């Protein structure tokens, strides 16, 4: 068994026991307990926190309830932060006199059992620290297979009871004023996390390492090439970059791919910068792209300053309808829309055009690459598209 304790007077709890012990940071006891229990499912894990810890560690309590990992949490609730001088905690009554001046009058004390119930706790108990059958209450919680929370109310003679009339009788009375909790919470009953995790994990297949691609072809160009693909989110720009990389690998070239996009999902520019080289690649940014695929307005706009720097040795394959900044590069306009090609296929179509020109990659390299990347129907339609454009 391991006792996992938190910060505060309750944090000394582990020192009273002859067990494994883990005394950690304020509010975080459940996090260590989670790691310990997942690593050693046969270990009995008992966690103690004060009412201080449940405030700072609120998120962890809710998560423990949601997970239902077999841990037992004993909350040593004495209605204040004893160790730091008696400031109010999340459970301090508004009318108590504490070391936080008038501030506790402004905050509502939490019923941690109700909060835990709402979060899915499968076992809840609450009693006084003076309860005749306190061990029985604890035993019930310890035996429960799943997350069990016991809210134990006590006195803090060091700080609290000197200024507030709290007695064992007052505690008993206070307990009756809250909705009762008595052990298993039927409506939340469910699988214990560890058991459930292992059950689901056992059904999974081992992962294979990334496929190794042999050199089976020769590249049309044996020099370092830079390809910039400019598009919009949703145009499968990054996939096109990966396909181009894989095409390079089929010809024994080294490759790098660096992508740029915004944090917004499915909106904004999508840019892929690919380098193919017979030599090891250092810098991964594109300094002088040999080819630019200009496929989407957002991508073109994001890199607009690039265009005036390009010379006639650069080839731009442009989707017709797109406005380009003025440039001295060679521009080839492709009427993808007119050819009824969907916008999210333009990038692959542009690669096919490039392959048809035997620039950067050959048609064979492109076909080998899509075989690696796609399967089934996706592979078929990719093949058709390439045959159409090459």
């Amino acid at each position, binding site marked *: 068994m391991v006792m996992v304790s938190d910060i505060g007077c309750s944090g000394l709890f582990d020192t009273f026991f002859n067990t494994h012990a883990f005394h*950690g940071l304020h509010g975080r006891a459940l996090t260590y307990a989670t790691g310990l229990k*997942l690593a050693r499912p046969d270990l009995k894990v008992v966690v103690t926190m004060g009412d201080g810890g449940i405030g700072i560690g609120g998120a962890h309590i809710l998560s423990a309830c949601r997970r239902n990992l077999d841990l037992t949490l004993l909350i040593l609730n004495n209605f204040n932060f004893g160790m730091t001088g008696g400031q109010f905690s999340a459970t301090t009554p508004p009318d108590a006199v504490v070391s936080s001046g008038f501030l506790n009058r402004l905050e509502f004390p939490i019923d941690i059992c109700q909060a835990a119930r709402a979060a899915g706790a499968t076992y809840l108990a609450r009693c006084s620290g003076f309860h005749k059958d306190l061990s029985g209450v604890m035993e019930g919680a310890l035996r429960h297979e799943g997350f069990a929370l016991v809210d134990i109310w006590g006195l803090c003679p060091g700080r609290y009871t000197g200024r507030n009339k709290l007695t064992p009788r007052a505690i008993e009375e206070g307990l009756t004023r809250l909705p009762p909790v008595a052990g298993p919470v039927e409506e939340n009953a469910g699988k214990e996390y560890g058991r459930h995790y292992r059950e689901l994990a056992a059904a999974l297949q081992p992962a294979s390492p990334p496929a190794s691609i042999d050199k089976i072809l020769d590249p049309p160009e044996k020099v370092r090439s830079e390809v910039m693909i400019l598009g919009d989110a949703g145009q499968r720009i990054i996939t096109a970059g990966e396909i181009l990389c894989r095409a390079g690998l089929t010809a024994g070239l080294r490759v790098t791919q660096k992508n740029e996009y915004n944090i917004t999902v499915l909106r904004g520019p999508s840019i892929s910068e690919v380098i193919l080289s017979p030599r090891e690649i250092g810098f991964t940014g594109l300094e002088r792209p040999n080819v630019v695929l200009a496929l989407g307005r957002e991508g073109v706009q994001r890199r607009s300053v690039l265009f005036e720097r390009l010379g006639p040795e650069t080839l731009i394959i442009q989707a017709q309808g797109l406005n380009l900044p003025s440039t001295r590069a060679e521009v080839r306009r492709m009427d993808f829309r007119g050819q009824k090609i969907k916008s999210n296929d333009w990038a692959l179509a542009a690669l096919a055009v490039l392959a048809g020109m035997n620039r950067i990659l050959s048609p064979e390299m492109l076909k080998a690459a899509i075989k690696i990347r796609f399967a089934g129907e996706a592979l078929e339609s990719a093949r058709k598209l390439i045959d159409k454009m090459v």
Partner: protein
Amino acid sequence: MAFSLLEGNEATAWGAVGAGCRFFAGYPITPATSIFEAMLELLPPLGGICLQGEDEIASIGACLGASMAGLKVMTATSGPGLSLYSEHISFAIGGEIPIVIVDVQRLGPSTGSATRGADGDVQFMRWGCSGGLPVIVLAPVDARDCFLLTWHAFNLAEEYRCPVFIASNKEIGLTKESVDLEALPRPPIIDRAAPPPGRPFLPFETPPDRLTPYFLPIGGKVLVRQTSSTHGPDGYITTNHEEIARSQDRLEKKLLAAVSRFTFYEEYLEAKAETLILCYGVTARAAKDVYQKRKEQGRPVSLLILKTLWPTPEDLIKEKTRGAKNILVVEMNLGQIVREIRRVIPEKRVEFLGRMDGRLVPPARIEEMIRRVQSTE
């Protein structure tokens, strides 16, 4: 020679699993999320545990618990998450808990730009803890390094019982490249040392010839204590100042005295070069291009790439910079490791080139800076 296509983050995950990692807990954050995704594919089928914590604090906390139970653990994040890890990093240092922490750095400060790179946390990794005791920080340059240095990180975490950071960067983690997976070295695996039998076990005791305590797991037959409080060898709170002083000294010396054993680097020293470029991380790729080009042109520079950032490899820095007149430190931040360089070689002329605007430092800017540095002779 066949290549696979993988990004730095995937390589990090494969290196971790290769080194024996069987517990990962993390919270999704760009640009580190794909490490979590890779570990989620890798670990469960191997009987390992992959946990999506409710936040970063829970994730690293779970790692500390699992590590004390005997597993090799890892967590991964970016700058904003590192900020949340801070208190648990301090705990891992004081509690001597082995853990590998990956920071795939992004442009800060704070939320900054999730999809842009930077090396803005390299001092934070070292000093983002209360008490300021040392940690190990390794800095990969590319995907190959992500695999290898992560593997080494686990070995070091086991040997020295401390947090070991991988200072990655969006520009490494999310850049895909060709890697010869088969040719990647697989170093021998090191495990935390169990105590020899015959003595009662004290969790933080060290015999005279060791600076790292022996390890026994929580949950084993012998009772083990772990605590974030100032503790004596028995794992209970101590107020004995001599004992505390000895312990702090040992925690510091544990790593500082051993740094030569885990100083990773690459060197390209040219006898005729008056300038040495000193850099780390993704910037080293641009620096290598500059080195190569200048060598071919007959106007060489030297290049030293640090892959161990902390503890500062002082001996290495002093030795390798000896022959150069000018040191040019290049970083993807406003100047962090350069402070250490200037501290270690105060007699040398140390110039700095850096940027922290979401863009890589390109070879052309390094070139330009070298010309400027060399022309002010």
